[in-house]
C-alpha cells in the first residue's frame, strides 16, 4: 500500500491528510514534535486567558484519527534522505515513504538584536511557547512587545488579561500601517491605547538588557529610551521553518520552494502551509509566502487532489482575511493596500463610537470595486465573493450593503449613514438603499 507521510500536524498538514483520506485508501502518517493531536493554533491565546483548555482547542476528538486510519507519531524528524525515500527521527527510527508532504510551519523572526536569547525573551507560535510564557509571567508586572502585527496584538491581549502592563514598540507610524490604510491603523491604535496598552510609535529596538539575575530587565530603543520590563515578546512576523530541510536535496530559499502545484524539485515531495515559498511564474514578480490559517487549509485541499492522482494547480481565490484586535473584529475582502495605487480612491466611513468603520477602495474611473476593510461590523463572505466575481461597482455595493450584513439580530444598522456620507462626498450620484432591514432602536 502506498504510504503518505506528512511532517507537521498544523492546519495545512492535517487538511492534506483528511482530504487524501476522503479520496484514497493509502496509508497516512502524520509526524509532529509539538503535540500528538492536532489542535488549533489560533486558540493558543484563549488557553492562556482561561477561555479554554487545551482539550477544547482540538477540532477532532482523539478517536477520530484511528477511525480514519491516520497514524500519528509524536516525534521530531532529523533528516530526509530523498534517494532512499526515508526519514530519520531523533529517536533513531527510520520511516519510509512513497510520498512526502512538508508542512513544518514557521518560526518567530529574530533579527539579531543583542540580548534576544535572554531568559524572559520569547516569541509566540507553538504550545511550547505558551508553556514558556506561563513561566515567564510569574511575578511579571510589565512586558514589551516588539512588532505590531497580528501575533503581537494577540500576545498583548493575553498579557493584559493577566494584569500585566504591555507596551508595544513598533517601527510604524500607526499600528499595522504597513498593511492597513492610515484611517484603519488609527482606529486600531486608538482602541489599543484606550484599553490601557501603550504604543511607542516609530521606535526600533536597539538592545535587550539583562539584570543581575541574568533575566531581561529592560530594553533600549533607538531613541535612547530605557523601558523596564520582565518580559519581552518578539513578534515581528514569522519565517518558514526549514531547519533540517536545508540539508536535504529539497530545494529551499527562505522557504521550501514549490511551484503552483505545491510540488518541490523532488517528484514525490510536496509542501504546504507557512513553510512554503511559491515561485513566481512571471519573471519580475516576487515569490509568494502565504502564512495564514485560511491559506494553509486551501493548500491542503488542493494538494490532496494532486496526491490522489488529479494534478491540480493551486489558485488562490478571491482574497479575504479576518482578525480581532482586542474587542474589535476585522474583515477584509479583495485588495486593500495601505496606500491606494494610482487611479484608486478610498471611501471611508467611521461610526461616532470610533469602534466601527468601513473602508472601500474603488477605481476612480468606472467606480469598480477593488477591496474593503471593515471593523466592528460582520459581513457575508459569500456575498462579497460573488460581488467581486461579478465586478460590481461601489455604487451597487453601497446600495445593497444590507444584503451582505452578518451582524447578530437586533444590532444597529449603519447602511443609511454610510450611503449618506458617500452621497455627501459624491454629490453627482445620489445613491439609494435597495435593501432595507428591520431595525429596533430602543437602546
Amino acid at each position: 500500500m502506498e504510504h503518505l507521510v506528512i511532517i507537521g500536524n498544523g492546519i495545512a498538514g492535517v487538511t492534506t491528510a483528511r482530504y487524501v483520506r476522503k479520496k484514497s485508501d493509502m496509508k497516512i502518517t502524520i509526524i509532529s514534535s509539538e503535540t500528538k493531536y492536532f489542535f488549533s493554533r489560533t486558540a493558543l491565546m484563549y488557553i492562556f486567558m482561561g477561555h479554554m483548555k487545551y482539550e477544547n482547542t482540538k477540532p477532532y476528538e482523539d478517536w477520530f484519527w484511528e477511525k480514519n486510519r491516520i497514524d500519528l507519531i509524536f516525534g521530531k524528524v532529523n533528516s530526509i534522505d530523498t534517494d532512499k525515500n526515508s526519514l530519520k527521527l531523533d529517536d533513531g527510527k527510520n520511516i519510509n515513504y512513497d510520498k512526502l508532504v512538508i508542512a513544518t510551519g514557521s518560526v518567530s523572526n529574530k533579527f539579531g538584536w543583542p540580548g534576544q536569547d535572554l531568559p524572559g525573551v520569547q516569541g509566540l507560535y507553538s504550545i511550547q511557547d505558551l508553556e514558556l510564557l506561563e513561566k515567564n509571567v510569574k511575578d511579571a508586572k510589565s512586558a514589551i512587545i516588539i512588532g505590531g502585527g497580528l501575533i503581537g496584538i494577540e500576545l498583548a491581549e493575553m498579557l493584559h488579561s493577566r494584569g500585566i502592563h504591555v507596551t508595544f514598540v513598533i517601527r510604524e507610524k500607526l499600528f499595522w500601517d504597513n498593511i492597513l490604510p492610515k484611517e484603519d491603523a488609527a482606529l486600531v491604535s486608538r482602541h489599543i491605547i484606550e484599553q490601557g496598552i501603550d504604543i511607542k510609535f516609530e521606535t526600533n529596538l536597539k538592545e535587550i538588557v539583562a539584570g543581575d539575575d541574568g533575566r531581561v530587565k529592560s530594553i533600549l530603543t533607538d531613541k535612547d529610551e530605557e523601558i523596564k520590563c520582565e518580559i519581552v515578546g518578539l513578534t515581528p512576523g514569522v519565517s518558514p521553518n526549514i531547519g533540517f530541510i536545508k540539508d536535504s536535496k529539497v530545494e529551499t530559499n527562505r522557504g521550501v520552494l514549490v511551484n503552483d502545484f505545491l510540488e518541490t524539485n523532488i517528484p514525490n515531495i510536496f509542501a504546504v502551509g507557512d513553510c512554503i515559498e511559491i515561485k513566481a511564474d512571471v519573471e519580475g514578480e516576487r515569490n509568494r509566502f502565504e502564512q495564514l490559517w485560511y491559506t494553509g487549509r486551501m493548500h491542503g485541499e488542493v494538494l490532496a487532489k494532486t496526491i490522489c492522482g488529479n494534478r491540480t494547480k493551486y489558485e488562490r481565490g478571491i482574497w479575504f482575511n479576518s482578525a480581532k484586535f482586542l474587542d474589535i473584529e476585522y474583515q477584509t475582502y479583495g485588495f486593500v493596500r495601505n496606500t491606494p495605487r494610482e487611479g484608486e480612491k478610498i471611501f471611508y466611513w467611521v461610526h461616532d463610537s470610533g469602534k466601527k468603520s468601513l473602508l472601500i477602495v474603488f477605481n476612480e474611473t468606472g467606480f469598480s470595486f477593488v477591496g474593503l476593510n471593515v471593523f466592528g461590523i460582520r459581513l457575508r463572505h459569500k456575498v462579497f465573493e460573488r460581488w467581486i466575481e461579478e465586478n460590481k461597482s461601489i455604487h451597487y455595493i453601497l446600495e445593497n450593503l444590507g444584503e451582505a450584513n452578518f451582524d447578530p439580530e437586533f444590532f444597529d444598522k449603519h447602511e443609511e449613514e454610510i450611503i449618506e456620507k458617500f452621497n455627501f462626498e459624491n454629490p453627482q450620484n445620489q445613491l439609494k438603499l435597495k435593501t432595507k432591514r428591520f431595525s429596533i432602536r430602543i437602546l
Partner: protein
Amino acid sequence: MKQLDLQPLNIYTQNHNKNGNNNLGFIEKLGLTLVGVGSLAFIISLTGFSNNNPLLFFFLTFGSVSLGALIYFIPKISDSPAGVKNNGMFFNSFTSRKAGAWLLGIVITGFYVLLYWYSSTLQGWIKLVDPLSNWLRGTKADQWFLYGTFYTLAVLIMGVRVLINKRHNKYQIFRTLSVMFFQLGFAFLIPAILLRLNQPEFYFSYFWPLKYHYLFPGSVSYLTKSGGLGYFMAFWGAGMTFIATPILSYFFGKRWYCSWVCGCGALAETAGDTFRHLSDKSLNAWKIERWMIYSILVFIVVTTILVWINSYYKGEILGNLSMSFSKTYGFLIGAMFSGVIGVGFYPIMGSRVWCRFGCPMAAILGLFQRTKSKFRITTNGDQCISCGNCSTYCEMGIDVRSYAQRGENIVRASCVGCGVCSEVCPRGVLKLENNSAEIRFNNK
C-alpha cells in the same frame, strides 16, 4: 475625513490595570460584605431565631444578599470595556470543576433534597417569606413560595450580571430582559395574584409536557370547575402545546421558548451563565442525549395516555397502573432530574443538563426545529479558524465548530438559540437566522 486622533475617547485608560487583576475596589468589597452578612443571617434564620421578626430578617437575608450582589456587579460596567468576558473561566475554582464548584454543587443539591423531601427543615426560611406571601398572595408561605422567591431573585440578580457582561450584544440584552420578564411576571407575580383572587394558581409560561400534569384529567377538570378563567387556562395550556408550539417553532426555532420564555432556561441563562462551558461536547454525550430525551418524551406521552384511559374507564381497566406511572415520572423526572440534578449539578455538568438530556418539551420543540423550521445558525463562508470558542461555550454541548469549519450551517434539534456561539466567535463566523425553511442545511 475624520482626524487621525489618537487621544483615548473614554475613561478605560485610567484603570487599565483592573483587567485581569483580582484586587477588589471599595464598592466591590462593600457588596461582598453585604452578601456575607446576608448569608450569615440565612444560617441564623434556619434555627428559627428569626420567627419573631420575619420582616426584619427578610431584609437581612434576601435583601442583603440581593443588594450586595448588585453592588458587586454594577461597578464592572466602568471597569472594563464592553466585549467578550471569559477571562479566567478555566482558572476560577467555582467555574472549572475545582473545589469551589464541588462545594457549590453540594450546597445546591442539598437544598433541593431538603426542599423536595424534608421541607420541614426549611421552616425558618419559609417563615421569612411569610410577609411577602401574605402581601402578594393573601396566604401563608409554603416551601414552593420560598423556592419561587429564591428562583426569581436568582434570575433577576444574575440577569443583571449578564446584562452588564454582554452589553456589547443587543441580542443578548433583549433575550436576557425577556427571560427576566417572564420569570418575574408569568412565573412569580401572576400565579401569586391569581391565588389572591381565589383563582387556580396557573403558570401561563409552562405547558405540557414540561408541566406534565397540565394536560392530566385531574388538572383539566379542576381548572374547568373553577369557572370562566379556569376554562381559559385549560384551553391556553392545550393551545400552547398543540397550536402555538409548532407555529412559533416554525418561524423562530426552539429559541422562542427555551431561551426567551422558559423558567428553566431563564435560570440557565442567568445564574447558570458562568457554567455553560462545562457541558460535555463529545459524540458519546450526543448519543446519550438522544436516547435519554426521546425516552423521557415517550414516557410522559404514555403516562398521559394511561391517565386519560384510566380516567375514562374510572379505574376499571388499569387499576393503579396509570397512577404508578404518574408517580414514578413525578419522582424520577419531575423532582430528581429537573430539580436536584438539573440545577444542583450546574457547577459540574453545566447549566443545561435538564434541558439537554431530560426535558420532554425541549424534545418536542427540537423535533420541530430539526424537521420544519426557518431557524438555523449560518456559517460565514470559509472564515472559521477552528479555535473552538463556539463549541466550548455551547451550553447544549453541540460541537458547533465541527459544522463551522466545514462551512456548514448548524441545524440541530438541541440548539436553544442562546446566541452565545455567535457572540464569542472571534471572526464573526456564526449568525442565528430565520430564513427560508428549504435551503438551510448547507451554504457551500
